[in-house]
């Protein structure tokens, strides 16, 4: 599905604005063969000659983008199956989300797909995009601008998948893939998590979840994943109406997702941008060993916001070791505050050395640096570069300043693999996610030990 050699666009159309046109326009950029399929098409579309049916395709093809209305799908999928195409994206809506008749149609589609061993993304999805391969199996406009990154976005809603992907672009981050699962006919969270866990471009997986009929399967897939997973569960209502017991009346969907994710090692967040911040922190850092955050700030005010918020977000602020405090005092006699946070009062050339000292403190599991941009000094890129890998701890960086003036230095930090954050709050929340991830991982590991014992 996500790594095809050739693509058939079934229902490709020369009329601009139709899904069959937009999907073809996006897919045409793919570096493998792309075939527009339509029995009534003639000539070429984006330079590729129309073929009448998927069985007439001569070359490699293993993915079909189905731009046909729902009722035509069973036949289309049967032809795909017979032509040896093992994966299909179904954009059409009007299936299980649309009442009894749609549900029956979806059941038929799944039967045909299962019989012919075809994986189905959708129906009722806007598709998926893998930027690094120019693989744009979405009919939405602008997907060619989504940059490549190392976060896999797996959203229940195709719309939210695009929201996250475009947000990620604006944040200068990018995605390894963006997937809208839609109705999850036979490719659901479990299959997607499994796939992206094994994907070498992916270092973090983010989930947008509205609700699924196999919550336990979802949790188990998350626990199995070696790649960190972060989840955003939407919707806080839905208490069982069947309840005869207090237990039933007190057990809502949201409680079970929240408790279940924690029990299975998955930190949860409550907003789309938090999801991407969490992924940036987890996907670009060594695994945190614990929840203890060492904060270094060049300005007291933002530092106070950060330290206050970290504790609410699940992190802890340990006392720094005597040795570290002595080092700080050595570098910078009379520094404003040498506890935790370390506050220098203003940016200064020695700032990088202080960050290094805190990062090397054994009491610290996670480092968070806040510094307003000072043009004459720039960022401590040299000190931060490679620091996280060397000390084996996440090092997060947050700043503020004039975008254009910081651009070059920010790019240098990105180049050095330092995850950066836009506000003191978001940096603190990202550190909180790392802290919770460390604690939840330890909890899951302890459970595994007691299960195996």
């Amino acid at each position, binding site marked *: 599905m996500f790594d095809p050699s050739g693509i058939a666009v079934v229902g490709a159309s020369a009329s601009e604005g139709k899904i069959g046109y937009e999907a073809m326009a996006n897919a045409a950029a793919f570096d493998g063969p792309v075939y527009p399929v339509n029995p009534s098409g003639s000539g070429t579309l984006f330079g590729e000659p129309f073929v009448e049916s998927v069985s007439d395709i001569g070359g490699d093809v293993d993915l079909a983008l189905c731009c046909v209305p729902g009722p035509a799908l069973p036949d289309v999928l049967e032809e795909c199956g017979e032509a040896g195409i093992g994966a299909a994206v179904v954009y059409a809506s009007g299936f299980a989300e649309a009442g009894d008749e749609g549900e029956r149609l979806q059941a038929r589609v799944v039967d045909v797909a299962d019989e012919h061993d075809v994986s189905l993304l959708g129906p009722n999805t806007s598709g998926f995009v893998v930027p690094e391969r120019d693989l744009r199996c979405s009919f939405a406009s602008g997907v060619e601008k989504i940059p490549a990154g190392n976060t896999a976005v797996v959203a229940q809603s195709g719309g939210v998948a695009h929201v996250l992907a475009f947000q990620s672009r604006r944040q200068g981050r990018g995605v390894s893939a963006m997937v809208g699962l839609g109705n999850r006919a036979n490719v659901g969270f479990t299959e997607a998590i499994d796939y992206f866990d094994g994907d070498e471009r992916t270092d973090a997986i983010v989930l947008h979840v509205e609700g699924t009929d196999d919550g336990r399967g979802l949790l188990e897939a998350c626990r199995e994943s070696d790649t960190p997973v972060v989840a955003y569960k939407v919707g806080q209502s839905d208490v069982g109406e069947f309840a005869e017991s*207090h*237990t039933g009346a007190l057990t809502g969907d949201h*409680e*079970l997702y929240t408790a279940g994710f924690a029990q299975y090692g998955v930190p949860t967040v409550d907003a789309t941008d938090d999801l991407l911040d969490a992924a940036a922190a987890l996907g670009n850092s060594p695994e945190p060993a614990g929840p203890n955050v060492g904060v270094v700030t060049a300005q007291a005010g933002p530092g106070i916001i950060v330290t206050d918020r970290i504790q609410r977000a699940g992190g802890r602020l340990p006392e720094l070791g005597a040795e570290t405090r002595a080092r700080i005092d050595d570098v910078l006699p009379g520094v404003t505050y040498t506890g935790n946070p370390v506050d220098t009062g203003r940016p200064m050339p020695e700032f990088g050395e202080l960050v290094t000292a805190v990062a090397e403190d054994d009491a610290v599991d996670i480092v968070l640096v806040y510094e307003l941009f000072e043009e004459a000094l720039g960022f401590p890129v040299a000190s931060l570069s490679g620091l996280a890998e060397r000390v084996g701890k996440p090092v997060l960086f947050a700043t503020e300043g004039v975008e254009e003036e910081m651009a070059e230095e920010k790019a240098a930090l990105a180049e050095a693999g330092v995850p950066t954050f836009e506000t003191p709050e978001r940096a603190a929340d990202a550190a909180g996610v790392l802290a919770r991830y460390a604690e939840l991982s330890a*909890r899951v590991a*302890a459970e595994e030990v*007691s299960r195996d014992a």
Partner: protein
Amino acid sequence: MRDADPIDAAREDGRTTLTEAEGKRLLAEAGVETPRFEVCPDATAAVDAAETLGYPVVVKVSSPAVTHKSEWADGAGVAIGLDSADAVREAAEAILAAAAESGIDADVLVEEAMDVNAGTEVIVGGLRDPSFGPVVLTGLGGVFTEVFEDTSHRIAPVSHREARSAIEELQAATLLRGYRGSDPADVDAVAAVVKAVGDFVTDYPIAELDVNPVLASADGAVALDALVVLEAE
């Protein structure tokens, strides 16, 4: 293998709800402590049971038709703190009369009284969720259960460690740790109930289960009431 007879008995009668006595027998087999009790067909048997158990006792309606006993028959369903044969006889007769009046089959459950002021009331519940399967709930119990909604959930089955963490994340954990000079409750005993209930919904065809309250004290954790609803066959 635990004896699942109460479940078979309910199935044979076409019932999905177990009586309190049936529920407590199942819990007792799973190692959960319950007060001593007897189920009696009439007032005389109830008095005999009370004499054997020792006063004070609690007398409750015992019928598959009554799930919320304290709200049943204008409060006749539960009589607490009975310390004489006359009081027991009166309470039992009231239950049987109310049952006859509403046309249901009922017995009388006579149980040794526990001092609920000697501990903290906790709810432990289980249910089979359509998406997550067996889950277990822990919370502040008794009359405040639905007032404060101080609960935590776990996907079942759970280890003793997870059961403990479910208790420790409650607001009510502060009460269990002991406050204003009271002795800390035996949290491990409560955790054992949480674990047992988790195993219970995992192993049996149970739709919903309330053990409410569980009386948690320094002496242990005792299940004072049990509501078991089976899955429809």
